[in-house]
């Protein structure tokens, strides 16, 4: 029940925030903050409710029994970590857009919270139909977030984002249906239950193609090299809060999908596909970094750096070793925090300079000391400096991948060098050098509200870089459970033990 509230609460809070605008603008912001704080309480309550095992909480209701579809939510360590990241970045997004958004404030917080509700659903759903339901649903409010509050080219960017992700989503729908029909033909029951379908397609000749459908949907969202062209536009044109949610959370849904579905559902097919996928990841690492270096628009620079970072995730997932997976989780969290913070900082810069163009920046270290210091922290986090979170993630991924495929690991390592180039260029072009004569003469440094948001994120990334052990403890049993699925082997333990018997008896579809 708690898990259901986790999805319902943002919807209710969102509508409350929408209506609250009539009385006071700030009220809808406070309601959004309160909702996210309540979410935090809910998820902690859900996570501490049960003892031991990979599964911390679950909810299961009959939904569309005719098609064997159930409303099934589960929480394990991996989902927990990502839900916490979502809540954290949601809070940061609300606080950082406190003064940026002045039009239709209520509606803005409604769409933001609805997006988050969809994301929570994606991270918790364990029925493939339900997963797809949330997967598509989170795009609609995100589309409006970009199209209504974005920058100059917002309509084009929003449209591109929507069509890319929806289109690849349809491929996943076909794959989901194919998987469950394969299962139905083998066993006679039609079901979309994740645990029932684990290993269902393993022996089928279709396994590779079904896996490919899932893979494409997730790598478009990730995005991997060749599937990334929506990302720079969407990230650049979205308002800061939108960019934070896009980069920090929505990209993680792609990585989560690869971890949760592609590998455990199709162990053999995914193993056979590992080398091309990892090569795609390595290409993304280098390509993203090189293109980031060439950008003049700060937001585009950060967007391309995301492609580079997510390349590491793709490599790590398909290496499928314990070390690499630990790294993937750290990388997801660290990238969410560091890129989210960079987008927030760029938003602050844009509010002050009214431009995102690097050519009209320079010498900001003098007038904006606090902003500069924080920008510095996250730029070097992005390049993978030891002591900050991204280093742990990338190092573990490379370490875990080396025994699997040395050439790809070596190629990806080159990405660390290119990352230094774009990160240092970013610092050089914004903070140092001569001040641009055209920029406003008196610039206000970060306010207390702005500083506290970014400083909190900085503390988080420092903590992640120096003492990541609590994170490992949270997700290690979940990862172990994911990896238990051997090619053709028996299914992993189901959550709830005997409760699994209560599952809705799906009927055969033929009338």
């Amino acid at each position, binding site marked *: 029940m708690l898990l259901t509230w986790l999805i319902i609460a943002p919807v209710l809070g969102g509508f409350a925030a929408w209506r609250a605008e009539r009385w006071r603008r700030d009220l809808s912001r406070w309601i959004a903050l309160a909702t996210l704080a309540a979410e935090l309480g809910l998820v902690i309550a859900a996570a501490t409710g049960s003892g031991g095992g990979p599964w911390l909480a679950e909810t299961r209701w009959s*939904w*569309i*029994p*005719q*098609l064997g579809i159930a409303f099934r939510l589960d929480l394990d360590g991996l989902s927990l970590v990502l839900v916490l990241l979502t809540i954290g970045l949601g809070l940061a997004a609300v606080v950082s857009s406190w003064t940026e958004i002045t039009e239709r404030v209520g509606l803005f917080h409604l769409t933001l919270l609805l997006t988050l509700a969809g994301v929570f659903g994606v991270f918790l759903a364990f029925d493939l*139909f339900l997963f*797809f*339901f*949330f997967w*598509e*649903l989170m795009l*609609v409010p995100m*589309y*409006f977030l970009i*199209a*209504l509050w974005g920058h100059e080219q917002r*309509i084009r960017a*929003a*449209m591109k984002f*929507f*069509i890319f992700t*929806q*289109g690849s989503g*349809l*491929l996943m*729908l*076909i794959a989901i*249906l*194919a998987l469950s*029909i394969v299962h139905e033909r083998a066993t006679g029951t039609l079901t979309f239950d994740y645990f029932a379908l684990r290993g269902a397609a393993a022996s089928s000749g279709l396994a590779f193609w079904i896996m490919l459908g899932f893979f494409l949907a997730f790598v478009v969202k990730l995005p991997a090299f060749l599937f990334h062209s929506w990302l720079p536009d969407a990230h650049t044109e979205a308002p800061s809060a939108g960019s934070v949610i896009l980069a920090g959370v929505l990209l993680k849904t792609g990585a989560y999908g690869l971890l949760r579905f592609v590998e455990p559902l199709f162990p053999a097919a995914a193993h056979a596909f590992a080398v091309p996928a990892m090569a795609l990841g390595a290409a993304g690492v280098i390509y993203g970094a090189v293109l980031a270096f060439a950008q003049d628009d700060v937001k585009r620079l950060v967007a391309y750096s995301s492609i580079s970072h997510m390349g590491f995730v793709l490599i790590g997932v398909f290496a499928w070793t314990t070390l690499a997976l630990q790294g993937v989780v750290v990388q997801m969290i660290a990238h969410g925090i560091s890129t989210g913070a960079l987008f927030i900082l760029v938003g602050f810069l844009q509010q002050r300079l009214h431009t995102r163009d690097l050519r009209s920046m320079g010498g900001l270290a003098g007038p904006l000391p606090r902003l500069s210091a924080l920008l510095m922290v996250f730029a070097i986090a992005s390049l993978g400096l030891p002591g900050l979170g991204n280093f742990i993630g990338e190092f573990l991924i490379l370490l875990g991948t080396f025994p699997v495929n040395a050439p790809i690991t070596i190629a990806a390592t080159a990405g660390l060098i290119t990352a230094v180039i774009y990160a240092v260029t970013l610092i050089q072009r914004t903070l140092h050098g001569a001040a641009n004569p055209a920029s406003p003469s008196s610039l206000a440094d970060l306010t207390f509200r702005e500083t506290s948001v970014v400083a909190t994120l900085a503390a988080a990334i420092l903590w992640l870089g120096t003492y990541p052990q609590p994170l490992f403890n949270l997700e290690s049993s979940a990862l172990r459970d994911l990896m238990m699925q051997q090619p053709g082997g028996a299914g992993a333990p189901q959550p709830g033990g005997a409760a699994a018997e209560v599952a809705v008896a799906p009927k055969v*579809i*033929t*009338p």
Partner: protein
Amino acid sequence: MRATDLIAILPLLVLAATAVVLLLGIAIHRSHALSFSIATGGLLLACISLAPASHHLPHPVTPLFTVDGYALFYEGLILLSSLTICLLSRAYLDARKLQRCDEYYLLLLTATLGAAALVASTHYASFFLSLETLSLSLIALISYVRGHDRPLEAGIKYLILSGVSSAFLLFGIAILYAGLGTLSFSSITHASLAGTALSAPPLLGGIALVLVGIGFKLSLVPFHMWAPDIYEGASAPVTAFVAVVSKSAVFALLLRLFTATGAFHAGPLTIVLGAVAVLSMLAGNLLALLQRNVKRILAYSSIAHLGYALVALLVGGPFAIEAVSVYLVAYAIMTLGAFAVMTLLPPSDSLRDADLIDDYRGLFRSRPGLSLAFAASLLSLAGIPLTVGFIAKFYAVASGVDGSHSVLLGTLVAGSIIGLYYYLRVIVAMTAAPLIMQDDQAARAGGVHQGVLGNAVVAALVLLLIGLGAYPTPLLALIRASASMTLR
């Protein structure tokens, strides 16, 4: 004819009686309010009479009709859609200040009668007569609101093309009769069981000509040319009637032809129908991209949607009745939702409904409620979750996967992706700043007679759209129950 026979066709009798009462009423006293009340009351009564009719299923009534669960399900869909359109017409006609609106309701009733009889037909004679009752009423209905020459043009166009397609249909029926010696649908099944070569040229040609006639009514490519012009020319509630009632009735008949006779599965027909489905999905979606008029966009989108439904029909196998029924219900709800909003919007000038994309600019600010309803309908047409359109698309894709027909499936996906673009274009226009000056728009909004009734209809449609999208279980249960009481 026994009493149970009469009870079984009670909805049809009620409709016919209402038409007669309305006719007499008009002769005695002309009043918009009175005619509207009689029509609404009759439609409601016909809906209620579905309940006693459902007691003896399946029930053949003369060789012409069979009342089974399937027929009653579609009669219900048709009656409810007509009722919705009837309720919407009131405000629409009032706003246009027509001199006489009484015959409008009469034509609406006869067209509904034709559609409702069509879905119960199991004989080519009743099929043809019902279809003609529907079509002839539609011709007059399309050109009824004569503000200018466009409705007339649309009416004439529909008259000619409908006549041509009826001629094809009749010729096809004649060939089948010549070959089989009977006009009953089930005769084809017997013929195929008896080993008569159905792929022999004359019989196959007859079936093909019948399909041409049906294809025209459904505006499937390559018989789709009339749809955009007639959608554009007819007034919004009539367009909704053409799009929803007429098309779902004919599609239901096509489905019955498929399930009642094994003939349509076999041989080259499947390939031809597959090609028609692919062309409809592609042409519908691609041509919609080029339009500036929302009615034309919806016309092309309906061509594409019937293509999707055809996929469910062709490859669904035993699953087809369920998949097609879900699709048609969803199609009816979302199309009615879109047209309901269009009906309630003030006309952009004295001649034209609010049908250009530019008319929708800034609607989110000036009329948030209506524009949200319109956005919900469009998102449903695009197949986004939490709307009934998603469930429909899910069924279409599921039957494509189940039949492992990759060409149809691939086209369906490609078509849906293209479709997103033009649906979003309308939604984007609603969020943009309005073109017209603020006071001008206020003047326009001030002159509108909108009424509580119209708003209530829109609200009900949106609730249904989202409700069935989130929890389709009752609908699926109903469809399964009615499919189980179907005469095969």
